[in-house]
């Protein structure tokens, strides 16, 4: 109806002409990826560190997890808040209820306004949080990433739960042993852009290229968005698409619990091996009923504890985030900052029916 009139036609023609003119004008002399200087300002030059400086009293630190109702992150953050009490500071946990990239940003702004001494954050997107984090550092608020890293120039330290390579490769090694190095396998991940998940998956794929795994085939990487219901449905979908699937690796606590719940009530129970990263309390039931033989995880309480002390050491001027600096993390002992400001917590623990009852988190 619109184009039936001459006026309508004329309007469209004018619009088209205007657009093509704009295109012509801009096509040859615009700002492209290769021409213009794109945003890559370096983090504020770190001041010199004084390794003998005592931890300041009354430090205010805040944990900003990917989402607040994630049971795993809650354990990390609560342990970090407890640690803050040890050194006479106060800690709190704030955060969004969904794991969207942009939803963390308004919390960072808030923490800046509240003049916290340090922000500890598990990034949903390594870049979307960058601008505000740089703002924070400019105002001398220390930034420590944990669990999932940000771009390197947007934080001073990254507390890595375990080396990514070790996590990725060991999960494939464990699963391979369980299924006799033969058959179709799939991965149930969290969100498509989660930095940690993707790094682990890369290493899983690397490991699968080794000759030992030539009869194992990775058929699909699927995403449950760290939402219980979606992870459950994705598992269901996997089993429908690949009824002969032999193994699933879910390197996320939400994913593995949802997958275990689906498998435990389905005819695939005992036929499909589920491995991955989970918490003992969530997985105890499925280990006992035989759905899951084993899974692994680092100790999340230690992760939060270490992060909390690292933030305090930064805020007290003991360290600046440079490679080779050392700091003491309470009962965990001394840690050394590695390349790119990374601090590695240690090796993951494997949980099975033999040891699961000795853990409570």
């Amino acid at each position, binding site marked *: *109806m*619109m184009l039936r009139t001459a006026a*309508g036609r004329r309007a469209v023609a004018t619009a088209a002409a205007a*657009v093509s003119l*704009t*295109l012509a*004008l*801009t*096509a040859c*002399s*615009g*700002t*492209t*990826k*290769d021409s*213009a*200087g*794109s*945003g*890559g300002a370096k983090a504020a030059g770190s001041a010199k560190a004084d390794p003998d400086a005592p931890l300041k009293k009354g430090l205010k630190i805040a944990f900003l997890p990917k989402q*607040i109702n994630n049971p795993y992150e809650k354990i990390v953050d609560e342990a970090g808040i407890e640690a803050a009490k040890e050194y006479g500071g106060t800690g*709190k946990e*704030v*955060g*969004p*209820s*969904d794991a*969207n*990239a*942009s939803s963390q*940003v*308004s*919390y960072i*702004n*808030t923490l*800046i*306004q*509240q*003049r916290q001494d340090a922000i500890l954050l598990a990034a949903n*997107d*390594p*870049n*979307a949080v*960058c*601008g505000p984090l740089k*703002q924070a550092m400019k105002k001398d608020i220390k930034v420590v990433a944990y669990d999932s890293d940000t*771009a390197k120039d947007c934080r001073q330290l990254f507390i890595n739960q375990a080396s990514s390579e070790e996590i990725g490769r060991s999960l494939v090694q464990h699963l391979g042993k369980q299924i006799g190095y033969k058959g179709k396998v799939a991965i149930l991940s969290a*969100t*498509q*852009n989660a930095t940690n998940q993707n790094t682990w998956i890369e290493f899983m794929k690397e490991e699968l290229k080794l000759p030992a795994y030539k009869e194992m085939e990775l058929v699909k990487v699927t*995403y449950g968005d760290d939402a219980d219901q979606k992870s459950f449905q994705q598992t269901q979908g996997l089993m429908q698409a690949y009824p002969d699937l032999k193994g699933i690796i879910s390197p996320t606590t939400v994913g593995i619990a949802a997958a275990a719940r689906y498998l435990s009530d389905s005819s695939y129970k005992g036929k499909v091996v589920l491995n991955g990263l989970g918490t003992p309390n969530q997985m105890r039931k499925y280990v006992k009923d035989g759905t899951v033989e084993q899974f692994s995880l680092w100790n999340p309480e230690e992760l939060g504890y270490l992060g909390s002390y690292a933030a305090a050491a930064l805020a007290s001027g003991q360290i600046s985030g440079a490679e080779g600096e050392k700091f003491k993390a309470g009962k965990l002992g001394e840690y050394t900052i590695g390349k790119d400001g990374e601090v590695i917590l240690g090796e993951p623990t494997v949980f099975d029916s033999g040891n699961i009852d000795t853990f409570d988190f």
Partner: protein
Amino acid sequence: MTTAPDTKAAPSPRAATKSSLARGLALRWDTAVGVLLVAVLVVGLGTTEGFGSAENLAFAFNDIAEVAIIALPMTLLVVAGQVDLSVASMLGLGSALTGALWEAGWAFETIVPVVLLVGVAGGLLNGWLVTRVGLPSLAVTIGTLALYRGLASVVLGSDAVTDFPQVYADWAVDTTTVPGTFLTYPVLLFIVLAAVTAVVLHATGPGRSLFAIGSQEEAAYFAGIRVKRIKLLLFVATGLFSAFAGVLFTLRYGSARADNGLGFEMLVIASVLLGGIDFDGGKGTLFGAVAGVLLIGVLKNLLTLNDIANEVQVIVTGLLLVASVLTPRVIAAVVERRHRRAANAPAPQP
């Protein structure tokens, strides 16, 4: 405008004054939202440290720039009795396309018009399905909500594109403000667009005809209003604004992703409804919608600053929404009953 059903019976001059006073103030939900907004601002300034800093205000308003910009054409759509649920998906598609083309080495100045064109095309598809095929807009845009988000994933996959040109990124972020104010450039743009939209809706013939379309589409058609064309144009405008919001979002976060703005459609529609735009069409003011979107933004900022958990924030927004739908109806019902009683009462002897 939001007015209660007019009653011809004005039993006494005193009652008339009282009722017009009530209509002028209490019955105007959009005014109430405006007052509530000011109240929240005042309470925030008085109670919360850091709330009133230029830095925080710049952030708080900039943070809702995309939602606010999309809320403008959405207001017109809802007034005309339509709705577009695909706006956030179009935002995501705009963002994904911006990222993919930038990655492919296109000039940013070329990317923007192309993305806007895609927005227009998406709006045309929505509008065409509604006006020409005759499908209800709710159903059509639930479909395109999935379609456009799916296309966004096809365009960019699970990648995130970053490192957009600094000069444009600086334009969008909350740390750059119009000198001497706490207004960011996206907010300034929103103010200009809002002013234009207000004039269009309330002071032009086609704009005012939206109220007629929204309350009685058939009657409007027989009164000579070009219902289909106007509705088509509204969908196109909504697509255009949403695609632009996609570019803005990308620049603001410095990250182009297919899932950007996931769920924003609800935020947009909530703002519009909170502003007193009747979901059945035919009623509402642009002022109300703007006040609604600002209220949601300011409230979120204030609650976050006070460490109120996200769940509570969602509950507060939900209650406000229910109140915004309920209150005007309750008041209208009360007023009507009072009028009926007044009309039934024996006329006073002169």
